[in-house]
């Protein structure tokens, strides 16, 4: 039997909160899907949720915003790593302007 309680997705869960919340929801659910829960420290953690809930979350605007924020943060993190991994290689603004013929 699928549970239909309302899920608050506008906040970001801590790992502990997420585990408690999703364990409660998913007890006795037959059809399950995997979903990434975004924690308040930006660390992803996985949990098993019902297909019904998964569909509900995907359609949820606030949830999508949280996912988008994580998507953006990942890009920022990658650019930090890229910068340090390339030995802090940079171009000055003046050099760049010259290159662009300005």
């Amino acid at each position, binding site marked *: 039997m699928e549970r239909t309680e309302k899920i608050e997705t506008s906040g970001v869960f801590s790992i502990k909160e997420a585990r408690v919340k999703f364990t409660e929801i998913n007890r006795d659910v037959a*059809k*399950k*899907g995997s979903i990434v829960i975004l924690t*308040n*420290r*930006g*660390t992803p953690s996985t949990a098993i949720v019902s*297909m019904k809930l*998964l*569909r509900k979350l*995907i359609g949820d605007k606030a949830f*999508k915003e949280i*996912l*988008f*924020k994580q*998507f*953006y*943060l990942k*890009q*920022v*993190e990658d*650019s*930090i*790593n*890229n*910068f*340090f991994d*390339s030995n*802090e*290689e*940079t*171009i*000055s*603004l003046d050099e*760049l*302007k010259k290159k*662009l013929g*300005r």
Partner: protein
Amino acid sequence: MYKVKLSKLAEKSLRDFSDKNKEIEDLLISKLEDLQNIDIQSALKSRKVGIVEGLPQKALKRLKERNFDEHVYEYRDFPKSKPFRMVFIMREDTIVVILIVHHQQMKERFNNLVSKKLTSYLDLMDRNSF
């Protein structure tokens, strides 16, 4: 006055944007020039600049190890019709722009990615009794 530099990745992004549109090149260059004279505290107050919140500690630790300011900043002072974001880090008198993105284009890319991946994922889940 700050020395403004761009990482290789940020330079590539700027060139990609400017190849398509010279007006955008002018805009991005003028905003980089603006960064040279920025007063970070008042820019934070006026929301011209924001702090990127929620980054993993690992990334912030890496900044600290290289003597950069512990925050990652985002320059947001762009017209609504051209919602760019310039992400930068700071060390003493130097600002390094590490990422330039067009917020709207990034969101569209994200939406496409999510709908494609999730649609195929859900189809697969429906076909298989999990």
